[in-house]
């Protein structure tokens, strides 16, 4: 009977869950990123082929790995939202999208910065860079579609459809770009990332992936809270929370 009320009740719980998890993710994420980055930058041995430039790997690979998993996570959230009509799911989708776009952007910039010393050019139409660029546009497309709607419930559904269309296309895009690349470029590109990495290089890499994932998780929790606040602006529990918040900031 109170079906429409039920999800509201759930969002309050979700909000508090986010609040509880937030400090853990923030502190752990920051600590692990710092630790892994310092390890990677200062203590890991050098690469005999690429010298110190290879250290870009400790920011490039984590962001590149995350970008695709964030898109998949976003599409999964969209799917759950569309099939089971879960409102919170759309909120999660929209909390993930800007993080995904940012992370993709970082992977593009670092990819270019790595390309300059290695390939002698800032931008190479390398398969991975190209599909990363397209991925960023897919993220931005979902975000702008969502922003274009006044009615956020409708916006969630529309952006969800587009996210799913994108995720179906993602492997096709990836495959087609790779194929197009081999067709045009041949083996002119220096292959990066050797199959076997010495453990003292690999460990900081794995740690930095973990750190970036945790930090993205922390930002996701924060943005999820924002999405909830925005949608439930008139709920009593939100109002109580806002009063508490203003009292707190005045106390300072």
């Amino acid at each position, binding site marked *: 009977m109170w079906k429409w009320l039920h999800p509201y009740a759930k969002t309050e719980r979700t909000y508090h869950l986010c609040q509880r998890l937030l400090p853990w993710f923030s502190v752990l994420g920051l600590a692990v990123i710092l630790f892994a*980055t310092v390890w990677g*930058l*200062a*203590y*890991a*041995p*050098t690469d005999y082929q690429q*010298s*110190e*430039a290879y*250290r*870009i790997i*400790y*920011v*490039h690979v984590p*962001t590149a790995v995350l970008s695709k998993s964030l898109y998949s996570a976003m599409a999964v959230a969209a799917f759950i939202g569309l099939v089971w009509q879960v409102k919170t799911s759309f909120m999660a989708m929209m909390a993930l999208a*800007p*993080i995904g776009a*940012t992370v993709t*952007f*970082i992977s593009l*910039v*670092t990819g270019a*910065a*790595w390309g*300059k*010393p290695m390939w002698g050019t800032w931008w190479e139409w390398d398969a991975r860079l190209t599909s990363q660029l397209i991925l960023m546009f897919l993220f931005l497309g979902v975000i702008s579609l969502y922003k274009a709607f006044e009615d956020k419930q409708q916006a969630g559904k529309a952006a969800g459809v587009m996210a799913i269309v994108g995720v179906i296309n993602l492997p096709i895009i990836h495959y087609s770009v790779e194929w197009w690349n081999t067709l045009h470029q041949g083996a002119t590109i220096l292959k990066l990332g050797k199959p076997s990495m010495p453990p003292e290089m690999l460990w900081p890499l794995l740690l930095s992936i973990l750190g970036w994932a945790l*930090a993205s998780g*922390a*930002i996701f929790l*924060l*943005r999820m*809270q*924002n999405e909830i*606040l*925005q949608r439930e*602006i*008139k709920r009593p529990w*939100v*109002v109580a*929370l*806002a*009063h508490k*918040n*203003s009292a707190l900031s005045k106390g300072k």
Partner: protein
Amino acid sequence: MYFEDINGFLDMGGYGLYVWLSFGSGALSLLVLWLDSLFSKQRLFTQVLSEQTRQARIKSAAEKSAAAEQSAAAEQSAAAEQSAAAEQSATAEQRTNGETI
């Protein structure tokens, strides 16, 4: 530490620009995203409060107009009490929101 001194660390074997550009842009983007999320949370809280004052405004306006209506109706009914009563019983049954027909 792998590097001999701080200069070697900053130089990164001649690749300093690219390495520090990468890490700098990564850190900066992450920071911007994080700050944006934090600030928009604060903004949302102030929005919640201003929405509350707006609600209160609407409520008081509605009460005022209702009170004005009531006093006007009271004057009228004093003038023609009986005819009003007769009219009321004659009107079709009024149902309001929420009741079952």
